[in-house]
C-alpha cells in the first residue's frame, strides 16, 4: 500500500521524477500531433496565407476576423469572419445539428441501453447487432442513406408511398426544409449505438442490491428509474454527451457527402474546408478553424460547468 509520501522526501522526489519520465513521451506526442497544428492554424489566421505559398505568409493582424472598410464619407462597412453572415449561418447550423442530434441520441441510447441491460435470451447477439450502424464508416452510411432517400429510386419514399404515409415522394436531401432533417436522421441512426454502449457500461456498474432494496420497499419502477438509476448513471451519460457533442460540433463527412454545398446544412467544418481548399482563402479558412476551436472549447466548458462534472475523480 502506498501511503501519502511527502514531496520533499527522497522517495517523493523520485516518484515525481518517474511520473515526469512516464508523462514526457505522451506530452511530446500531444504537442506534436495537436499543439503544433493548432498553433500553426491560429498563426495562419492572422496572416494572408495562400495554400500555394504558405511560406510567404505575412502578418495582417485581425483582418481575417474583422475589418472596417471606411468609405471616406462617414460611411463604411464591416468585413471579415465575424461580420460574415454565411459564417454565422454555419455556426447556427452546427449548433442546431449538435443540439438536436445529441439530444435524440441520448434519449434513444438510454432506452436501448435499458433494454439491453435486462436479461433475455440472445442478449449478446442483440448487443452486437445494435453496434452495426456504428461500425459502418460514415462515408459509406451517408452514401447508403443518400440512395435510400433518393426521390426517384429511394426505398424510404417507396415504403412511405406504399404505406400511405406520404402522397408524393419527398426529395429529402434537395429540399431546404428537409435537408437538415435528413442529416440528423442519418446521424442519429449512426451514433445512437455509441451512446447506448456508453450508457450500458454505466448501467452495469449500478449495484443490484439497491434495486432489490427498492423492490422490497415497494417503490414504483418509474420512481426507481428517476431516483436511483438516473442519478447513478449520470456521470456516464455526461461523458457520453460530451464525447458526442464534440463530435457533432465538428461534423464534416456526413454533411459533405449527403448534402454538399447546401446553405441549410453547411456546418463550421464544411465552411472551413471550403475556404481552405476550394477557394483561394487559406487564411480565412484558418480563421474559421480557429473560431471553430474556440466555439467547441466554450461548449465543452459550458457542458462541464452546467453538468457539474467532476473531472478530478474526487467523490464527495
Amino acid at each position, binding site marked *: 500500500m502506498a501511503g501519502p509520501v511527502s514531496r520533499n522526501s527522497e522517495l517523493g522526489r523520485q516518484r515525481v521524477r518517474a511520473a515526469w519520465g512516464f508523462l514526457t513521451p505522451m506530452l511530446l506526442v500531444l504537442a506534436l500531433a495537436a499543439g503544433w497544428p493548432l498553433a500553426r492554424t491560429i498563426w495562419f489566421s492572422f496572416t494572408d496565407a495562400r*495554400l500555394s505559398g504558405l511560406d510567404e505568409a505575412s502578418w495582417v493582424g485581425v483582418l481575417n476576423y474583422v475589418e472596417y472598410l471606411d468609405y471616406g464619407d462617414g460611411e463604411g462597412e464591416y468585413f471579415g469572419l465575424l461580420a460574415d453572415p454565411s459564417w454565422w449561418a454555419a455556426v447556427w447550423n452546427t449548433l442546431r445539428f449538435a443540439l438536436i442530434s445529441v439530444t435524440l441520441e441520448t434519449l434513444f441510447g438510454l432506452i436501448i441501453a435499458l433494454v439491453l441491460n435486462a436479461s433475455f435470451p440472445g442478449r449478446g447477439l442483440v448487443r452486437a447487432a445494435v453496434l452495426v450502424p456504428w461500425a459502418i464508416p460514415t462515408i459509406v452510411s451517408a452514401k447508403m442513406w443518400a440512395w435510400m432517400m433518393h*426521390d426517384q429510386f429511394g426505398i424510404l419514399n417507396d415504403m412511405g408511398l406504399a404505406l400511405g404515409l406520404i402522397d408524393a415522394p419527398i426529395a429529402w436531401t*434537395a429540399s431546404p426544409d428537409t435537408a437538415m432533417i435528413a442529416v440528423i436522421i442519418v446521424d442519429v441512426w449512426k451514433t445512437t449505438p455509441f451512446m447506448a454502449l456508453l450508457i450500458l457500461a454505466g448501467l452495469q456498474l449500478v449495484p443490484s442490491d439497491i434495486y432489490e432494496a427498492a423492490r422490497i420497499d415497494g417503490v414504483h419502477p418509474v420512481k426507481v428509474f428517476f431516483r436511483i438509476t438516473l442519478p447513478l448513471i449520470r456521470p456516464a451519460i455526461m461523458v457520453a454527451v460530451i464525447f458526442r457533442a464534440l463530435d457533432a460540433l465538428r461534423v464534416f463527412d456526413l454533411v459533405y457527402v449527403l448534402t454538399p454545398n447546401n*446553405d441549410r446544412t453547411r456546418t463550421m467544418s464544411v465552411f472551413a474546408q471550403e475556404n481552405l481548399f*476550394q477557394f483561394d482563402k487559406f487564411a480565412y479558412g484558418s480563421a474559421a478553424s480557429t473560431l471553430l476551436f474556440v466555439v467547441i472549447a466554450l461548449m465543452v466548458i459550458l457542458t462541464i460547468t452546467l453538468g457539474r462534472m467532476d473531472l478530478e475523480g474526487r467523490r464527495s
Partner: protein
Amino acid sequence: MGEMKGLTRLTAASLLAGVALGATIAGAAELSVVSGAVGNDLAEMRQQLDRFAAESGHTVDLVSMPASTTDQFGQYRLWLSAQNRDIDVYRTDVIWAPQLAEHFVDLTPHVGDVIGGHFPAIVESQTVDGKLVAMPMYTDAPALYYRTDLLEKHGKEPPKTWEEMAATAKEIMDKERAEGNAQLWGFVFQGAAYEGLTCNGLEWITSFGGGQIVEPDGTISVNNPQSVKALDTVRGWIGTIAPPGVLAYQEEDARGVWQTGNAVFMRNWPYAYALGNSDDSAVKGKFDATTLPIGEGGDRSAATLGGWNLAVSKYSPNQEAAIELVKFLAGEEAQKFRALTNSRLPTIQALYDDPEIVEQQPLIPRWKEVFLNAVPRPSAPTKADYNEVSSEFWTAVHNTLSGSGEAESNLRRLEARLKRLQGSGW
C-alpha cells in the same frame, strides 16, 4: 536473345538483392494517374492504361475519385500544395488550368509534333501565360436528350425554345401519367448545388440573352432582367415538369431517371449517349439528342464548354514516363477509342471525319459545331477566384430554385457579393 539473357540475369540479381525491378530496368516506371469519373469513364480509362502498360513496359495505377468536379478539385489542390509525389498524372477539368497552372509541367516542348491537330480554342483554354498546363483528352458540350418514341406518339417536334420544351414535357407527362405511367417526369437536369449547376445556370441565362455571369473582360453582368426571367422560368419547372429531387441531382442521378425511361427530356453531356444505347438501357434506340433550347428574348442556344485534360505534376519523380502516358491517352488512337466506346468528343479535328466514328456515334460529328460555339464558364477572367465565383453563383441559383428568396433579390445579392470578391480587380 542477348538482351533476353541479360534481362534474366538482371531479374535474378534484383530478386536476390531484393531490389524492385522497376528501378533496374531502364525506363520502367510505376505511374499513378488520378481521375474522377461518370458513367464508363474509369473502365474505359483502365482499358487504355492496360494497353499503354503493354506497349511501354510501365505500370499504371488508376486512383479513382468522386464524380463531382468540386470534390476532386479540393483534394487535388491539397495534394499539389503539399507537393505530393505519389500522383504523376491528374485528369483536370477545363476550368482548372488558371488555378493550378503553377503545379504542372509545361507540356509545350513535349507535344509540339501533335498539338497542331487539336482544336486551337481548346488548346488555348489550357494555356496559361504561354505554358501548356494540360493536354486535352476530350471535350464536352451538353445536349438536350429527348425520347423519339414519346414525341412521335404525341405528335411533337423536338423543341427549339425552352417554352416549347416545357409545354411538350408537360403535355406528354400528363398524358402518359393518365395512361398509368406514373413515374414519368418531363425534364431532368443537374440541380444540386455544385459546379454542374453553374453549367446549367449559365446555359439558361445565356440562352435568355442574360450574359455570361462575368463577361470575358471581367465585368459582372449577372444581375439583369433576362437572368431573372431565366431563373423564374426554371423555378416554374421544379415540381411541375422536373421532380423536386432534381435539386440534388448530379449527372448520374439525372441519367438514372432518364435511362430507366422515366423522363421525356434530359440535359446531359454526350457520355449519356453511348450509355443510353447500351443493352441494359430501357431507352435504347428510343432517343436522340439535339442542341439545348433558346430562351425567350435570347438569340442563341447556349451549351457550356466542358472537357477534361491530362496534366503532369511538377512533383512527380517520373515526369518523362508521365508525359509519355499523357501523350498516349490524348493521342489519336486513344481519343478514337474513347469516342467509339464512351461517346466522348475528340479534341483532334481529323477524328470528326473518321468513318467509324461517323457510323457508330452519329452524335459526335453533329456536335462539332456545338462545342465550337460553346460558352466558356468565367474561369479565365476571374482567375484564382473562379471557384468562389462559381460557388456564389450556384448558391444563388439553388436558393432561387428551391424557393429561398426571389430571383431578383438573390441575383442582386449575388452581384454585390461578386463585386466585393472582385475588389479592385480579379
